[in-house]
């Protein structure tokens, strides 16, 4: 119990610990459509779907729907209040806050999405391998995972961010490694609980090859857990990445990014709160949307 990080702690509330659950329902049991309907049935899940859908549309159409160039400065409209020309007002350099908010999530979302994919695939492979092999490999891997989990997340990311120099995209491995360790833990526990079930024992008795057992029996049964957990990791990564951006270790200045926008505009919040609060709202709705969606999916999958 001692090796928990913030988001493992968080996911503890959203979904029962993986090792406690009996073999869970999987995507093969219900179609994705049915799953979506089950998620939307609960108010929190519906909000999650709504927020995520909204952000998905904005991210995909962003460059074509912005009213102004997000980088264009205008000394005549510095810190202008919201108006028809600038519905969200303008910032310290007279740039349009609406346009910057629309495209301000693109880099963060791209980086954390790749990072989350890396963390989930790498973490799941490592975790399931550790669970299946056991022995020394398992012990070494888990001690290493514990060691990384013992670091305060931001400090670790700050150090790794320095290690991989070369802009915001260089943060992907750092994010992947740090959040991947949590995936290792979750997928290992899930695989262990499935591996001890009767149908895996039956497959062993039938004399199935271990690769068959892995792909036909274990993987389908842990996939749901891993995907739901992966979504929670993604939200955590968004938090980590925008914190880094806020501290000046993420996206480089002229590029619009929510964390950076909040950091830049926060000193003039008394005069122009719009320049700070709109990116805050955008970031908050995305993170909450992902968390609510993951929570809803976890519950709908029967956990």
């Amino acid at each position: 119990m001692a090796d928990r990080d913030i988001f493992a702690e968080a996911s503890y509330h959203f979904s029962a610990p993986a090792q406690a659950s009996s073999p869970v329902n999987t995507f093969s049991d219900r179609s994705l459509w049915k799953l979506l309907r089950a998620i939307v049935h609960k108010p929190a899940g519906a909000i999650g779907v709504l927020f995520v859908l909204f952000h998905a549309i904005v991210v995909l159409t962003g460059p074509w729907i912005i009213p102004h160039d997000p980088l264009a400065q205008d000394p005549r409209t510095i810190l202008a209040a919201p108006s028809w020309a600038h519905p969200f007002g303008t910032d310290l350099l007279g740039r349009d806050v609406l346009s910057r908010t629309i495209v301000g999530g693109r880099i963060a979302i791209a980086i954390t999405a790749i990072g989350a994919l890396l963390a989930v695939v790498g973490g799941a492979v490592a975790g399931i391998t550790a669970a299946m092999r056991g022995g020394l490999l398992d012990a070494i891997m888990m001690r290493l995972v514990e060691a990384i989990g013992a670091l305060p997340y931001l400090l670790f990311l700050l150090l790794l961010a320095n290690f991989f120099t070369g802009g915001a995209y260089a943060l992907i491995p750092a994010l992947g490694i740090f959040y991947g360790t949590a995936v290792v833990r979750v997928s290992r526990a899930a695989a262990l609980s499935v591996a001890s079930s009767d149908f895996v024992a039956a497959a062993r008795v039938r004399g199935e090859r271990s690769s068959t057992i892995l792909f036909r029996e274990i993987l389908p049964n842990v996939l749901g857990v891993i995907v739901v957990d992966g979504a929670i990791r993604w939200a955590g990564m968004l938090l980590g990445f925008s914190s880094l951006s806020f501290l000046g270790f993420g996206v480089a200045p002229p590029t619009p990014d929510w964390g950076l926008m909040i950091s830049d505009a926060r000193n003039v919040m008394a005069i122009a709160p719009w320049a700070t609060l709109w990116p805050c709202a955008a970031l908050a709705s995305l993170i909450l949307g992902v968390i609510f969606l993951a929570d809803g999916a976890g519950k709908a999958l029967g956990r």
Partner: protein
Amino acid sequence: MTLLRALFSRMLSLVVVLCVCFFALEALPGDACTTFLDQDAQDPELLHNCRVKLGIDQPIPIRFAKWAEALLHGDLGTSVARDRPVAEVVAPHLRNTFLLAILAASVAFPVSIVLGVLAAVWRGTAFDIGMSAFFLVAMTLPEFLIATVLIFIFAISLQWLPAITVVATGAPILEVLPNIILPVAVLSLVMVAHTMQVVRTRVIEAMQSDFVETSRLRGLSFQRVLLGHALPSALPPTLNVIALSLASLLGGVVVIERVFNYPGLGTLTLQAIHDRDMPLVQAVVVIFALTYVSLSLLADLISTLLDPRIARRAD
């Protein structure tokens, strides 16, 4: 046995942290000399002399050995950008951060117990659901966002509290206190978000357990059972989670200090990284890691001492 294992695992964590910290920082492009000399760093002779003076001309393994050896003696080295012993630079910042953390923890602990017990007792009511929703939001949002929004509400709209902390690094504690209400509030809000649900779950579990039912059947009053039986058995895991969340939140302290311009360890870390002041960065990381490790050991110790079932459980 469990404690020994925990101790071993924490020590291993510490070693890994120290190695990552040292080598990651050494692999950085640029060092204190290139930052210090700025334009003059073009001159190879000046650069070399500076590196010799600071002792960073030697190969990495030798420096690691020296650094680790000095560390074992409690010597944190000399800050290259500030030209003072690291311990001297760090001490007042460390005090400020501990002040923040301890204040936040002493607010968060009673609040999360009270709210957790109330949510458990009034399970399923609007209060319970509202609390869960509120703290779920507080738990999932970045600290800097919560801090920014709270500054907007309490410092700018209502003008009740100062937006930033204007205190000198070494100011007496009594002078610091009135200025840090908002940062303490942010930190304790995040802490309560992490611990209140744990209290709630544990109290509900305890209230459904056999021994509580027996006490109820013996005719003890609800309050008596709740406060005398259910709460004590719910406390050890809560203390455990609080110690752990305090440890996890150390990272968040960096951000919160930055938001409020609070002269603590987090602000110092960012400055040191910016100055490429390796001995200082390494010292700060060592302190963070040591605090984390001791807090999580404390968490293990609490759960073992207060809950004999864990000590006896076979691994």
